């Protein structure tokens, strides 16, 4: 008993607590506590926690890659990739191409990714070239590039030469529909891969494995020569230059990588959601991803795979469980959509104010 007390004393000692606090950071602490509060509230309201948890896991896997797409640009100092929609629409194009040939299952999924890849690399290069010209304002310019690309793609979707009747407008016969179901193709194929139930919570094994695999790749990548060069570029461009690193090239590579991850992330997102959402749907795709990365502890100076994972888990769990709870608490009113906006944008705002600037 005495031993136990001393252990608790040590754990609660100011030094230990401060150390933990410094490592974890205030924002994450607040959000974790808030999350805990929500879970307690949900329990009191006698809500079904297993459903909430299952949905959270779903959303974590679904958004994971999009948040991971923030990593390369953060690491090289290009900043948060607010131009995420650029890569996202590449993924959508890949998805539509795969549908055009009626491919199903994993064939369909991987064909979509393979088709999206060259597109993402190409557009990533062009996007990087643009960002290079506006050094120092990448994030703002990126936001508008994202908006512009989505708008431009609206024209593409309307005139695209796709023929598969399941996705073109029923009347007129040209142009793809706003929302295309993947039900007969590869809807939730990753989610259901090796999925199982644990205490009533559905674990989307395939989805989480896929995200985990990419995190692992990213982790390894930052130990290659190129990866380390990117870290150095972001941490101190002059150091990088004096080590013979081509700083400009690293910035290009980071934007192209981010774009590619966004494209693959878009396909993963769509298969989990069950629909391809075209036209203006990708418009605000960047913001939740940005918020998640920041909440995870990534800053414009330093970001790691760990930050990304913590961020996506905290942010998506919070978003997922906050909605049904507000709905239950404020019964009778249709507050959910408003609450969703307030919570998600509020978090972005909060995270951005917490950003330590160089």
């Amino acid at each position, binding site marked *: 008993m005495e031993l136990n007390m001393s252990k608790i004393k040590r754990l609660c000692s100011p030094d230990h607590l401060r150390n933990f606090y410094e490592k974890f950071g205030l924002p994450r602490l607040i959000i974790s506590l808030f999350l805990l509060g929500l879970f307690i509230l949900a329990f009191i309201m006698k809500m079904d926690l297993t459903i909430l948890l299952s949905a959270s896991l779903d959303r974590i896997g679904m958004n994971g890659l999009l948040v991971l797409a923030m990593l390369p640009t953060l690491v090289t100092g290009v900043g948060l990739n607010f131009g995420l929609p650029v890569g996202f629409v590449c993924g959508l194009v890949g998805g539509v191409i795969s549908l055009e040939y009626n491919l199903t299952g994993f064939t369909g999924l991987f064909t979509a990714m393979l088709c999206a890849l060259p597109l993402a690399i190409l557009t990533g290069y062009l996007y990087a070239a643009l960002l290079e010209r506006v050094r120092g304002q990448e994030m703002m310019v990126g936001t508008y590039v994202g908006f512009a690309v989505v708008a431009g793609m609206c024209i593409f979707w309307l005139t695209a030469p796709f023929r598969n009747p399941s996705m073109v407008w029923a009347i007129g016969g040209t142009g793809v529909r706003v929302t295309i179901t993947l039900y007969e193709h590869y809807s939730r194929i990753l989610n259901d891969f090796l999925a199982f139930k644990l205490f009533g919570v559905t674990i989307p094994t395939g989805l989480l494995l896929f995200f985990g695999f990419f995190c692992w790749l990213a982790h*390894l990548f930052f130990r290659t020569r190129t990866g380390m060069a990117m870290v*150095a570029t972001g941490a101190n461009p*002059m*150091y*990088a*230059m*004096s080590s*013979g*690193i081509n700083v400009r090239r690293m910035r290009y590579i980071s934007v192209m990588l981010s774009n590619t991850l966004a494209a693959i992330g878009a396909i993963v997102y769509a298969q989990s959601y069950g629909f391809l959402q075209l036209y203006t749907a990708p418009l605000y795709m960047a913001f939740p991803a940005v918020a998640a990365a920041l909440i995870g502890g990534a800053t414009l100076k330093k970001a790691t795979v760990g930050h990304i994972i913590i961020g996506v888990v905290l942010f998506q769990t919070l978003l997922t469980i906050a909605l049904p709870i507000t709905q239950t608490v404020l019964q009778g009113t249709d507050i959910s959509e408003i609450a969703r906006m307030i919570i998600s944008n509020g978090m972005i705002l909060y995270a951005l104010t917490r950003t330590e600037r160089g």
Partner: protein
Amino acid sequence: MPGNSVLELKNITKSYFGNTVLKGINLSVKPGEIHAVVGENGAGKSTLMNLIFGMPVIHETGGFEGEIFMDGQAVKIDSPRQAMELGIGMVHQEFMLIPGFTVMENIKLNREPTKPNPVSKILGPSMETLDYQAMSHDSKTALEKLGLEIDESAYVSRLPVGYMQFVEIAREIDKKNARLIVFDEPTAVLAESEAEHLIAAMKRLAEQGIAILFITHRLDEVMACSDTITILRDGELVKTLVRKETSVEQIAELMVGRKVERGHLPPRSVEPSDDDIILELKDLTVEMPGERVRGLDLKVRRGEILGIGGLAGQGKVGIANGVMGLYPATGEVIIDGKALKLNDPKAALDARMAFVSEDRRGVGLLLDESVAVNIVLSSVEAQNKFLRRTIIPGVRLLDQKAVREYAMKIIKDLDIRCTGPNQPVRRLSGGNQQKVCLARAFSLQPEILWVSEPTRGIDIGAKQLVLDLLVQFNREYGMTIIMTSSELNELRRICDRIALVYRGKVAGILKPDASDVDFGLMISGKQPVKEVG
């Protein structure tokens, strides 16, 4: 105390974080006197001036000891504003002017004469209209006092650089109570004819009874205009001289003079000579702001330690930065008979050169990364070292075991005090950070090592260790070392030859045991007594 001094400093002592930069300074300036303060970089001139002008940096670092008297009255100067109220003006080294304003707007900035108007009657004096006529008149008077004819309504951005300095001075003397004006290296950015003009203006001001404190390192200017000369060295007042009773040589000697303890350096089997040149710079120009190199020629002997000295802003720092491709350079760099591709850091590294930058935190280190990463990263990037193969061909990962072992070894060899290879370098002391920078360069196994200001900002014990390391690199590994430093003393301690840079060119090359007079003269652009090969 003598009542006729405008300003009198008594026993001024100032330290930054335990590092004493001014020790017991006594100084007094009479009305109409031009008092020159000379000294090398780091002698304490700027600190003294900041103190007189009440710059916040002094108070943020714990204030100072001693007293300041003006007209025999003890005063406290806690802010530049108070200094101005007491009649102290300051002309800065860098211009503090607003380019988009006219000359008179700059001169009268924040002290504009105003006229009331209907709006100001309601909303108060801050809405009053500027009285341009009065402004123009005042500005003209001030400019005339300087003997300068420029249009007071011209925009400052259109003026030649030399004139901007005069606008600053005009602003100071326009202040009605101006009694003492401090000139902080006013001629540093001026051409020779402009400098002459400025000195004439200073004399004119002195005739009108304004006391002038003139900080400079150009000895001919000191001799041309000052009445009294105070020489600072290492924060101590060496001597106050009357100009008429002294000579340039005496000042030069006092400025530099100190016992050089040249340790017993280990001998070499072959002494470097002009027959074996490893590196030659021909007509090198480097566009490094504040440290421009303008058509410099230099030959470096294989295996020597060559020192590059000179005052700040003369271009000595630019040389290494230009050769290593960090700042735009033109000219020729020939290494072992082969021309180096300029403006390409990778090419410089491939030519077996390495560089320890003067900007330790800005260029030399990744502050948030570990000691080990800092040491090996350049070698990984430039030479593909510390990588191991993986099962995928062409993909190689950092060999963390090898990195750790290497880092442990070099930490021990260079005696880097840290908790281990994983400690972030931000947490290390300046001296140990410098050792990490040296380790980084050393890991590249260079034939030519450029080292800039290796002892800046580190404590005395660590300084000696760093210098010892350089000697060790030179003797044991045969590295040719080119060391740039503002501290002549340390150059004289370990270098074989010392090149002094003035105005972007090599003024001459001296042996470390050359006389203080020669060093003092050459460093301030005076022709040397004799040159040695």
